[in-house]
């Protein structure tokens, strides 16, 4: 089966500084793929490059269609929901308004059903639906960010470090929900993480990047067993 997202020779730069040096990777339909790497390796930039949020070169195809150079606003209409670094929550808007915005590109048909479904995964958001998002805890805001992404009915969910700044228990809870969503909604996931041990347990396929290049890739189970990965990223 052809991969849902295929990226070839991806380069990206901020000003004069090149951050990605020809990245090649792919995301299988229905699977969870993770990109691991240390701070500054280019993980976030990779997702931003896929979504046209930074100047890039290289080939990006989604569902067989080239999407490189497409405007960020269009990607969600093609079926890619990006949950950005730092969650990107609209802090002055209510939880419900945040979710409505998630469905904005679809024109809002079936809004009620989708919201009900999202509340099943994240019951706490149901309780807080009338609160402004800024009053939520970090974990709840991350849940809201994922929920907002789901409201777009995406085929591919891009998650940028959902574990950032959260307590380990909360992170585990969120990862568990992501797995459930992946199974039940048939949403493919591309997860970018610093927390390698959790990410490798969740994902089926993994890429390891260092300074903007893929240095290793394979089934997640294989990377987990790899000596180098274990020493450098898993810490035992």
């Amino acid at each position, binding site marked *: 089966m052809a991969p849902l997202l295929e990226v070839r020779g991806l380069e990206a730069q901020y000003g004069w500084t090149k951050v990605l040096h020809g990245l090649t990777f792919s995301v299988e339909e229905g699977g969870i793929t993770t990109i691991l790497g240390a701070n500054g390796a280019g993980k976030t930039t990779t997702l931003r490059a896929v979504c046209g949020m930074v100047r890039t070169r290289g080939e990006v195809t989604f569902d067989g269609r080239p999407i490189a150079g497409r405007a960020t606003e269009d990607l*969600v209409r093609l079926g890619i929901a990006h949950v950005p670094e730092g969650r990107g*929550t609209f802090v*002055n808007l209510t939880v419900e308004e945040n979710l409505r915005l998630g469905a904005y590109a679809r024109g809002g048909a079936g809004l009620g059903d989708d919201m009900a479904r999202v509340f099943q995964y994240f019951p706490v958001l149901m309780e807080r639906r009338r609160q402004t998002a800024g009053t939520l805890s970090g974990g709840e805001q991350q849940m809201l960010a994922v929920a907002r992404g789901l409201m777009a009915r995406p085929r591919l969910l891009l998650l940028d470090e959902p574990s950032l700044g959260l307590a380990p228990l909360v992170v585990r809870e969120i990862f568990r929900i992501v797995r459930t969503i992946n199974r039940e909604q048939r949403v493919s996931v591309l997860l970018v993480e610093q927390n390698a041990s959790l990410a490798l347990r969740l994902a089926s396929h993994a890429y390891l990047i260092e300074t903007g290049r893929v240095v290793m890739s394979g089934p997640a189970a294989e990377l987990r067993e790899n000596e180098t990965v274990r020493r450098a990223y898993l810490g035992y």
Partner: protein
Amino acid sequence: MDILLQQIVSGLATGGIYGSVALALVMIYEATDIVNFAQGQMAVVSTYIAWSLLNAGVPYWAAFVATLAVSFVGGLLLERIVIRPVEGAPVLTVVIVCIGLLVIFNSALGWVYSYIQKPFPSPFPDRPLRVGNVYFGAHDIGALAVTILVLIALYCFFQFTTLGLAMRAAAQNPTSSRLCGIRVGWMLAIGWGLASLIGAVAGMMVAPIVTLDPNMMAGILIYAFASATLGGFTSPGGAVLGGLIVGVIENLVGTYVHFIGTELKLTVALAMILIVLLVRPSGLFGRTAVHRV
């Protein structure tokens, strides 16, 4: 007592107009960090459009609605054509562009319509309204009502429609808005259109009071700045309330403090800007801006 009540109501009427222009300023400032110095002058252009329509024999409310439509489209186009290219430019660049617009509109109006003051009709009866022993100017009451209606309509638009929600989102977090598929550029343009529309209402409501000439809004823009500063440049509701407060204070001070009278009224507005900036720079309802360095 009766005079006090009259002065308060007439203060609220002009205050509503200051508040509207202040709201237009705040809307654009919130979305783009631009202080649109041309806001008042744009409103004068709208008012002249209304004047031309009325002169051509169009009934008042038809001319009113047509002016709103033209103003909306005009504001939208202005953003797309003139402001868009300087989006993200240094503050001074944008300020100069706005002042340039002000000067161009002002001169163009003077050229086309001359600088001679023109009477502008009020849609409300000449006869004052009598409540008990107190007489209220019908135009004051009418203008206040129109202003309030427009504000309620705007509130409902922003609060209850998807487009309004998208516009609030775009003003707050452009990056996340793009990820949600919101076309942020267009939201900003619509914001300019709405601001221009609000200004048009303010212009048409104030023109019967001050008579129409190309410099009509110069003083009112300063009152609007006082209103926005008082209410807080980051708070739409605060700007409107600030406008009402400024309007009432201006009127009362003009009536009861004799050395100020009508000539020094504008000084009151400037003094209020100064005091607010010294005592509470974020205004009554504004947020304090925190910048990470």
